[in-house]
């Protein structure tokens, strides 16, 4: 089976390198075709592995030694087990779809070939991330996807805002990565190895304090990647990148890496429930916090981005509460409908010449019905309406929260679900229904290429039916992850489900009704609360004022004042002093003979004086 593993892993990088050859040349469809082909190839082999694993196989491959120093010996090792294979399938599936979709979306972009190089490179790094069998391997992928996201966010590098967003993403992730690195160091010095197997084998025997520290440090890394508060700002700005990128990286795969890390290290996190609790709490906070920002935003992509954030929050809640399989399940389903949502948004942007303001759209249903339907499906799935995928995963999370006795978490998530329903259908209504604002603005929207729509179809189907795989999924992954026992009565569970669904549907209906009636009144937008949300709680501004600017000022100070004025100056001072004293001592050389003679006599007199007054003979 190794060959499937290697195909799955290396097909993307081959595609990437292939199209790399064309980057400097002008658009060439071959790159797109080759990369798509290879990605599909990778997807197929991942699928094969999925079935193989289902038949109870676990692949563990050591490729070659990488780093070895001191007692550290670090190979390139890959593992395909029930968890990683799920990720592989999800990643390769979504990426294949996105790749094909991009053939249409990027058709007229001059960075065409470059784009596909980056995408395939990203998939490769992502696969390393999920498949590696040790923490450092994961870190390689971790940084790799970071690089690709940097490159893809800043894909249109001529846009100032794009390159800025790219830097922001990379640097913020770096901050979190430092935390993760520290975690890795601690792991090494505790266990003398990085491999999951050995670490988890001995993790029980280490004192809890250390494990807690490790857990927290790793989670800091996860926060960065998954854009949890306070690292969340980069994700919204990351929407500067092309929409397929947002779909693939900033919705379906990369941002979920943090969740994956927690799931991967579940054996470790299980031992320290309080860390899990912190994770869950933060997740809850983000779930609501992000959703609230989505409520008022007018930017098509940012709304979806915030909803991604909040969904990541949900996943962290699940992972934090120890319901790892649920987290993974929601991760997968979310990958499907969220990428679908984004890609749909991509179609709209295409139709609207990259217009993002949803207030300038409306009534697009007529122009692009299929996209509308797909997005509607995705939204329903997102809101968690039966029978769509979201319903199963999200309700499981809520149930888990309730089951754990963390009612405030449950309640928060409950509210969050309501918010989700609101902003999703606010978006749907404003974009597809109501009066056609775009006409006035002179847009001529049109449905996109059919093959693109076909490409979206599998996602649509999956967002619809994926939920019914809940049971098989559970027993599949719980072969590796530990089971999560629902202790509460089945009736309460049902009650909760009905409560939530009822609430969600209620909100949806209300939203549709309200916006069909023409939406909220203007003066609402002057409320302080509204402004607070609109300005994302002023956090980006805060960072601007409290971190970026002061750092630059400090740097200037360090250079101009400390380096030049103090250190270098004092160095030159020494030289100057010597030179000056030279000019002084040179006066002794008056050239006048009697002065010279005087010096001689002075010398002898002084020596005689010394001889008389200071005389240590022996």
């Amino acid at each position, binding site marked *: 089976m190794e060959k499937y593993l290697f195909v799955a892993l290396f097909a993307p990088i081959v595609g990437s390198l292939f199209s790399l050859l064309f*980057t*400097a040349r002008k658009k060439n469809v071959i790159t797109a075709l080759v990369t798509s082909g290879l990605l599909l190839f990778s997807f197929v082999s991942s699928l094969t592995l999925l079935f193989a694993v289902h038949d109870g196989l676990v692949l563990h491959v050591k490729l070659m*030694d990488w780093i070895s120093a001191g007692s*550290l010996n670090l190979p390139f090792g890959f593992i395909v087990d029930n968890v990683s294979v799920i990720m592989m399938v999800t990643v390769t599936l979504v990426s294949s779809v996105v790749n094909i979709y991009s053939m249409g979306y990027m058709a007229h972009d001059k960075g065409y070939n470059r784009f596909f190089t980056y995408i395939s490179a990203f998939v490769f790094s992502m696969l390393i991330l999920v498949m590696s069998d040790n923490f450092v391997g994961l870190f390689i992928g971790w940084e790799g996807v970071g690089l690709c996201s940097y490159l893809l966010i800043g894909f249109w590098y001529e846009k100032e805002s794009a390159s800025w967003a790219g830097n922001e993403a990379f640097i913020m992730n770096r901050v979190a*990565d430092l935390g993760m690195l520290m975690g890795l*160091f601690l792991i090494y010095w505790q266990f003398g190895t990085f491999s999951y197997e050995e670490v988890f084998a001995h993790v029980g025997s280490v004192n809890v304090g250390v494990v807690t520290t490790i857990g927290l440090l790793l989670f800091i890394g996860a926060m960065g990647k998954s854009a949890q508060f306070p690292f969340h700002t980069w994700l919204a700005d990351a929407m500067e990148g092309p929409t397929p990128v947002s779909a693939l990286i900033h919705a379906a795969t990369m941002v979920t890496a943090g969740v994956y890390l927690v799931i991967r290290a579940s054996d470790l996190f299980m031992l320290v429930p309080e860390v899990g609790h912190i994770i869950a709490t933060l997740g809850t906070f983000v779930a609501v916090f992000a959703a609230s920002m989505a409520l008022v935003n007018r930017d098509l992509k940012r709304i979806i981005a915030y909803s991604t954030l909040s969904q990541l929050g949900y996943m962290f809640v699940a992972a934090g509460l120890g319901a790892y399989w649920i987290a993974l399940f929601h991760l997968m389903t979310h990958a499907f409908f969220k990428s679908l949502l984004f890609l749909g948004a991509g179609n709209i942007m295409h139709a609207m010449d990259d217009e993002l303001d949803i207030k300038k759209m409306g009534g697009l249903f007529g122009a692009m019905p299929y996209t509308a339907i797909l997005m509607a499906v995705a939204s329903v799935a997102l809101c968690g309406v039966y029978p769509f995928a979201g319903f199963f995963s999200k309700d499981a999370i809520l149930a888990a929260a309730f089951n754990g006795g963390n009612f405030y978490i449950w309640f928060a998530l409950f509210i969050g679900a309501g918010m989700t329903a609101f902003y999703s259908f606010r978006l749907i209504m404003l974009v597809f229904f109501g009066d056609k604002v775009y006409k006035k603005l002179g847009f001529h929207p049109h449905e996109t290429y059919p093959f693109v729509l076909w490409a979206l179809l599998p996602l649509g189907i999956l967002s619809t039916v994926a939920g019914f795989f809940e049971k098989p999924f559970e027993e599949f992954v719980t072969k590796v992850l530990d089971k999560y026992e629902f202790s509460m009565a089945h009736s309460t569970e049902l009650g909760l489900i009905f409560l939530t669904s009822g609430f969600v549907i209620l909100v949806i209906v209300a939203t549709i009704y309200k916006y069909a009636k023409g939406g909220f009144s203007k003066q609402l937008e002057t409320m302080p609360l509204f402004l607070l949300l609109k300005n994302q709680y002023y956090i980006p501004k805060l960072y601007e004022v409290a971190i970026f600017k002061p750092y630059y000022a400090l740097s200037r100070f360090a*250079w101009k004042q400390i380096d030049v004025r103090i250190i270098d100056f004092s160095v030159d001072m020494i030289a100057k002093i010597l030179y000056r004293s030279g000019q002084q001592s040179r006066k002794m050389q008056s050239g006048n003979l009697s002065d010279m003679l005087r010096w001689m006599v002075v010398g002898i007199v002084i020596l005689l004086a010394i001889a008389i007054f200071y005389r240590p003979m022996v």
Partner: protein
Amino acid sequence: MEHILSIIVFFPLVAVFFGFVISKESIKTFGITVAVVEFLLSIVLWIGFDTSNAGFQFVEYFPLISQFGVSYYLGVDGISLFLVILSTFMTLISLIGLNIKKDIKNLVITILFLEMTLVGVFLSLDMILFYIFWELSLIPMLYIIGAWGSGQRVYAAIKFFLYTFAGSALMLVGILYLGYQYFLATGTWSFSVPDWHLLVLPFNMQLWLFGAFFLAFAVKVPMFPFHTWLPYAHGQAPTIGSVLLAAVMLKMGTYAFIRFSLPLFPDASYYFLYPVATIAIIMVIYAAMVAYAQEDMKQVIAYSSISHMGIIIIGTFAMNAEGLTGAIFLMLSHGIVSGALFMLVGVIYDRRHTKMINEFGGLATVMPRYAAIFGVMMMAAVGLPLTIGFVGEFLSLLGFYRVSWLMTLFAGTGIILGAVYMLVLFKKAFFGKVTKDENAELKDLDKREFTALIPLVALVVILGVYPKPILSTIDMSVKKMINLMEKKALLPSTKEFLIRVNHTGGKK
């Protein structure tokens, strides 16, 4: 393989003498040929190197002044082997990349002379011999900066020369004192390092001697606050000068720390561990900040190398195999990366005759290949995994974590701040629209520049993916050295420390 070390050291010198008679037109070719041969020789050395023997190999010894114990003593081990190869390699690359027309003959000759001194420094096992090469290496660099530099070149050259010379003045006293101690201990004079390694010095004496050596090395590295000569030197030096300065000459200091300070004065090294580490952390953070504030591309990279040298120091003073091996590997990687970056700046400087960042913008559109290579080097500089930059940085920090997690955290900020100034530089210079129309029709890399840069890119990737052969060789000698330190350590605290940092597992 007899006398291969002598051959490696003195081949360029002989070439220098021949160089005097060669005409201007063909001198560069001559230089490159010599450099190639020299490089091949060093590769032969590597091939012939017995990777199972941690001790010094190809040793050559004959007394120079027998009654005073000065001898001609060469030898190579895992620690120095790759630094030698680095020197020969970077010399070759920089010569290929060279495109100065003015007084080309003198320049090439000087470069070859410099190569001799650099290789000599890494190969000599006799302290006096080492000192000779150490000082001798200043002369060619003085000439290169002063004669082919830009702006206030003379000031920069003199500053560089005097600063480093004055710095190593104390070291001379230290050397002679150690020699005398050896004389007192054994009744015979000797300045050879292996002999000295057997010498166990009282603690106080170690402290003083460590100080005496420290100043010389610190100035060379350069460590805060003795670093101010570096920006001037880099700012004014011609590309080739900066390349060799950053790629190889700075490494002399850190190499000396590993070769002399640690094994000769283990207790003192432990005693000064935290002060030194603090300085190193200041280097990392402070230099990174200053780099971020720079307006001149070259200065950014100059300060960035100070920052990276800080990490190397950190790794060195971790005093465990992980850290030391990492530090040495980081020397190699930084040599390659910083060298490449300086060459890249040189490329743009040749075209526009300015290095000011705000003069540029949108270069990615005009010179995509250039941008791509710059990007790769940048990623290596910020230590992205699977590039050469990651391995050393990771190991150094990993090693030091055992000493102090807090300090490692501070030193670790280097990976953030490094990303900051590098990405900002890249964004300002390469992204955005082409604003200045001088930049509009800059031509992309030409063949010469490609031939110089491609090998570096290749190395960055290859060694990033498969550093093991190099690491294991280094590691072997490093372990040997650590054992030596453990044996020599006087104070139980030092011993205990060395044992602790060299073993994994929870606190006992």
